[in-house]
């Protein structure tokens, strides 16, 4: 129900805090927030707020620092669900329930972790499913079915790699699924003796893993997967997430699941973007019409009605479309997921219907073709304030940013890349000069382009403070500062992950700042991100969140 039609007699709660950073220039800081009907009523001094609005004081956040709830403007629903499987990644990560999973920094650690998981499974026929494997970190060492056979010779084991394009399986799985020396598939490499090594490359080969493959992805669709997503967001102060094109929202059951799970007790809001490259079986006109209908089912917690398109692949995977001089490693150019000729035709139906189109474009050639498409559409069907957004926007040049500005587009920059793959970009994919210009948040802001920044979780872990830290410092694991001149200030970074995201989701009047009438969504922090050393921004402890006025404490670290 709209708050404007209620009489305003609901109880008011005043939450004093150590400091409130509102990200609202009209009142940048305060010492308390007043909440009524799940919305911010006002900010100010606690006693003034009680004197004006009545209500009671809740002191539970009195020593906390409040910011608007963070907006993760590019994430995927599998952020939580993937934790139903055993984590074997190189870097330590925290699961949605607060459990710390130390990184598996050697092949032996991977085997050890899988043995523990094997012991915990009671049913001997249940496959062991794991994720996050990244043998790139131990070059020269073999990791194949034999390591996994050391875990079990009877239980089927399926381990997907961090890039989600490869899997490694054990001999028990190969035998059960009929993968043998006679398997001639291209994505099934063999050893010198003609035996498949256990590596399955790309979905077609992974599919040969049969039931374990299906179970791996099937479980990502459970209700529990969405609840875990909510908990993962809560743990890092994120109160609004996006599911960018991972769901087929033409399926009634998918829509129903989100509406059912995201009730008032759910700790976050979700802006759902329909994956229109994969899921538009009857064409874009029909899909756009369906999205217009679906938009009406939106609630305060779940928003429908926008779409995601994809232009190209990833830079680290060598599948992004890059302009001259191409990849530093000399590999072939990447792949198109939409034909450049068809961009305008694919966008137009959604654009004309007033829907937002957020488009994945990593490489600068992908951005170029995308902007040409938008230029055509904006010329034939001018639309004010469309807020179409370039997602990832990693190699966008200053000239392209100017064109984005002219076309009224937004940039959602993959700031975390500098930390997670910065050294690889410098040394392998594009070289030091282009790597220093990647994810050019400074350039975007200087040109006045609405900016947000993201984690693309689960590609990198969800966490807006980490994203902001990456954009502020631009450091790499090797200790390099990659592109010092593209760094932005803490204030700019925190604006990007709050109001910046809100703007791109067309929710700027509802979330993104602590301002009267907006949803009472806060990131509740233990330290003031404006006060800490910028290099420690990512380490600011998160107590939890407030979502619609309700407090959600982060899981205790286990």
């Amino acid at each position, binding site marked *: 129900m709209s708050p404007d039609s209620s009489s305003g007699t609901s109880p008011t709660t005043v939450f004093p805090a150590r400091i409130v950073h509102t990200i609202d220039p009209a009142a940048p800081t305060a010492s308390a927030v007043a909440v009524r009907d799940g919305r911010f009523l006002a900010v100010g001094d606690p006693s003034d707020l009680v004197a004006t609005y009545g209500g009671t004081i809740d002191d539970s956040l009195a020593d906390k620092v409040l910011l608007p709830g963070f907006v993760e403007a590019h994430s995927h629903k599998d952020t939580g669900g993937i934790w139903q499987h055993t984590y074997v990644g190189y870097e330590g990560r925290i699961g949605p329930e607060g459990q710390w999973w130390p990184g598996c920094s050697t092949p032996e650690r991977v085997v050890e972790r899988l043995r523990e998981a094997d012991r915990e499974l009671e049913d001997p026929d249940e496959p062991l499913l794991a994720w996050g494997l990244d043998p790139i970190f131990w070059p020269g060492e073999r990791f194949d079915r034999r390591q996994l056979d050391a875990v079990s010779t009877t239980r089927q084991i399926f381990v997907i790699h961090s890039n989600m394009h490869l899997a490694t399986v054990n001999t028990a799985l190969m035998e059960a699924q009929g993968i043998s020396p*006679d*398997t*001639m598939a*291209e994505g*099934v490499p063999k050893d010198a003796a003609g035996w498949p090594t256990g590596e399955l490359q790309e*979905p077609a080969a992974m599919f040969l893993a049969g039931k374990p493959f299906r179970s791996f992805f099937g479980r990502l669709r459970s209700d529990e997967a969405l609840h875990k997503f909510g908990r993962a967001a809560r743990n890092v102060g994120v109160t609004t997430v996006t599911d960018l094109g991972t769901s*087929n929202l033409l399926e009634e059951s998918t829509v129903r699941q989100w509406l059912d799970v995201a009730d008032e007790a759910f700790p976050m809001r979700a802006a759902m973007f329909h994956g229109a490259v994969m899921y538009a079986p009857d*064409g874009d006109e029909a899909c756009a019409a369906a999205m217009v209908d679906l938009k009406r089912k939106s609630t305060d917690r779940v928003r429908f009605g926008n779409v995601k398109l994809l232009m190209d692949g990833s830079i680290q995977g060598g599948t992004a479309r890059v302009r001259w001089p191409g990849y530093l490693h000399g590999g072939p150019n990447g792949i198109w997921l939409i034909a450049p000729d068809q961009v305008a035709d694919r966008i137009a139906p959604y654009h004309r219907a007033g829907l937002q189109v957020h488009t994945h474009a990593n490489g600068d*050639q992908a951005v170029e*073709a995308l902007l040409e498409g938008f230029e055509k559409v904006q010329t034939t069907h001018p639309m004010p304030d469309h807020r179409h957004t370039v997602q990832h926007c990693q190699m966008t040049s200053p000239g392209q940013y100017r064109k984005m500005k002219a076309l009224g587009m937004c940039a959602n920059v993959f700031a975390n890349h500098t930390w997670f793959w910065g050294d690889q970009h410098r040394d392998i994919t594009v070289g030091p000069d282009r790597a220093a210009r990647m994810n050019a948040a400074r350039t975007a802001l200087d040109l006045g382009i609405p900016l947000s920044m993201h984690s693309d979780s689960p590609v990198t872990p969800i966490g807006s403070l980490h994203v902001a830290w990456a954009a502020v410092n631009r450091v790499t694991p090797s200790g390099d500062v990659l592109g010092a001149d593209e760094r932005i200030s803490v204030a700019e970074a925190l604006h990007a992950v709050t109001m910046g995201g809100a703007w791109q989701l067309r929710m700027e009047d509802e979330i993104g700042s602590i301002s009267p009438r907006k949803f009472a969504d806060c990131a509740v922090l233990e330290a003031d991100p404006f006060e800490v050393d910028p290099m420690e921004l990512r380490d600011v402890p998160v107590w939890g969140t407030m979502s619609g006025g309700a407090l959600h404490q982060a899981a205790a670290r286990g």
Partner: protein
Amino acid sequence: MADPQDRLPLTVVGGYLGAGKTTLLNRLLAEPDGQRIAVLVNDFGEVDIDGRLLESATDDVLILANGCVCCSIADDFAETLDSVRSFADRIDRVVVEVSGVGQPDKVAQWAHSPGFSPDGIVVAVDPLSIRDRVADRYVGDTVLAQLACADLLVVTRTDVAEPEALTASESWLAGVTEATVLRTPVPARVLLGPVPRKARPDDPAADHDHAAHAEQATDHVTISRVLAGPVSRASIDTWTRARPSGVVRAKGLVRVDDRPDDRTVLQVCGSSTTVAVDGPWDDGEDAVVAIALPGTPRAALVKWLNLLKGS
């Protein structure tokens, strides 16, 4: 898992936007040459089927009176293959359309899924625009890669292109790929090759003599041969290297001397030859059949097939 003997041959058909893929697929559905083909397409809107041929239709599947089926490719290709597997007993082969910017060889990898076997990569080429496409700054490399992975290239729009333009395109193609180049119209049995499975009593293709039919209907040359027994590994290698020009398709189900209890499938699709074991020997005859372009000397084909022999 499906009986390996019942694997459905899976052919992918690629080509850039406007290359004539859809026309090619519509023709396969309309004139399947006695084969029951399941054609998997990206967009149902493009499929043009004579209403009189349509037996039933749902959101995802069209069933035709001639035994063919047309399915829309689901968001999850694994799911699409599952659904094809569910009616595998009613079809002889599968043809999969690749999107205009898709790489046919990537899609062809799915042909190794249980229940299917790879049966060639066909790429359609518009002779009038191909050279502009290849020069395009955005898609030139994509189009070239599509051509490069093809076993068979089918030059389309032969009804509108001038003969000189066709010849020029074909000689240009011969310079950039190894693939065998065909011109539309290509009969289904030539484009896709013979079906290796035994005819069943309810099989519409079983009612007529395949070879005789082909000789009358087209100028393509078909030769088949029953072998005396298992062939030697060395003779397969010789045979592979000696393929005469003009051979479009060949298929053999044979025993090899070093694996006498297994069924080895010999397969030629244009420029590529594959030799793969697909299961235990099933007591049939060791046999091979070849189809070649019009004008290919029968004697050359006979001589070639005779290279397959015991040691």
